[in-house]
């Protein structure tokens, strides 16, 4: 029998270096994508008859070119906007039309959440960040009210339900159930933010 040659083992010592090289390449090229934001529907261009909104059902928010906030004609710091918006939406001037509202029922504020409209007006010089900050606060106001109602009716936050609904781990049956709940909460406090043309 001839001598069988031993197969030489490949030296794996440099494996770590190669792996490091690849690792550093991927580390450098990775960009964590930002894929979250404020979702909004633009109004359709289809001609609809102009609606007249009673003055008391309208909360007027103006952002001027210096990014200052005017709410109903009065200057207001941004951190008070959420409170003001909640008080306005949840006011329930007509007690009968909103039995779940906990507002003060002022005559000069909105009748019910369904009638309440928030108008956001900005100039062309307003910066985008100020606009986003205001939009964020208004969405926060709605979410806070929906959360409250969600806790009262279903012992669950609206935002938590929404998160569960979009999560891929939730099964179809739960999703269906969540969908009806979410829809109900959205109907209780419908998002009415309009942007008049200037």
């Amino acid at each position, binding site marked *: 029998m001839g001598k069988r040659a031993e197969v030489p083992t490949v030296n*794996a010592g440099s*494996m*770590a270096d190669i*792996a*490091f090289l*690849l*690792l550093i390449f*991927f*580390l450098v*090229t*990775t*960009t*964590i*994508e*930002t*894929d*979250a*934001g*404020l*979702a*909004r*529907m*633009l*109004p*359709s*261009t289809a001609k609809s008859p102009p609606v007249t909104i009673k003055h008391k059902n309208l909360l007027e928010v103006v*952002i001027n070119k210096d*990014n*200052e906030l005017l709410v109903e004609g009065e200057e207001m*710091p*941004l*951190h008070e906007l959420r409170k003001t918006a909640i008080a306005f939406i949840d006011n329930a001037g007509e007690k009968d039309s909103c039995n779940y509202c906990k507002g003060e029922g002022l005559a000069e504020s909105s009748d019910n959440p369904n009638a309440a409209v928030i108008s956001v007006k*900005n*100039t*062309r*010089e*307003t*910066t*985008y*960040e*100020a*606009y*986003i*900050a205001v*939009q*964020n*606060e208004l*969405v*926060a106001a709605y*979410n806070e009210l929906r959360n409250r109602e969600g806790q009262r009716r279903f012992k669950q936050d609206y935002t938590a339900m*929404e998160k569960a609904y*979009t999560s891929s781990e939730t099964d179809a049956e739960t999703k269906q159930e969540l969908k009806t709940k979410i829809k109900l909460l959205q109907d209780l406090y419908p998002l009415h933010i309009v942007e008049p043309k200037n």
Partner: protein
Amino acid sequence: MSKFAKKKSGELPAVSTASLPDIVFMLLFFFMTVTVMKNNDVKVKNELPQANEIKKLEKKDRVITIFVGAPNDEFASVFGKEATIQLNDKFSNPDDVGDFILQERAKKDEELQNVLTTSLKVDKNANMGLISDIKQELRKVNALKVNYTTYEGDAFNNIKN
């Protein structure tokens, strides 16, 4: 000398690095799986504002992205310092947005064409005038679902007063 005395020579044993490749490979695979290759260069300054009431954009194939911001330094001499719109790889003006959306929409599958979202990645220093123009254009082509893409953070950081 007894054979036990040898061990007291004071030298520390070297740490075994045999498992180092495994560790590095694990990291490597992690980064390989989370990496998203960029398919378009952003040629504008794109520092997004912050917000906390945000919703995640779920499906990547249903999103059309529009970038807005001041051109990067290397383009500033040609395109100026005012915020402009970037569609795919070129600078555009608001009138082109409608055509761009229609083109992108035509590229998608039929069943997705009605559920597309337009993601607006706008630099925080851009003026609202330009954004309003874009929104008007989007309305004209019936692309009503928009997402103002932001970083997650405190919205109060946006306005310093």
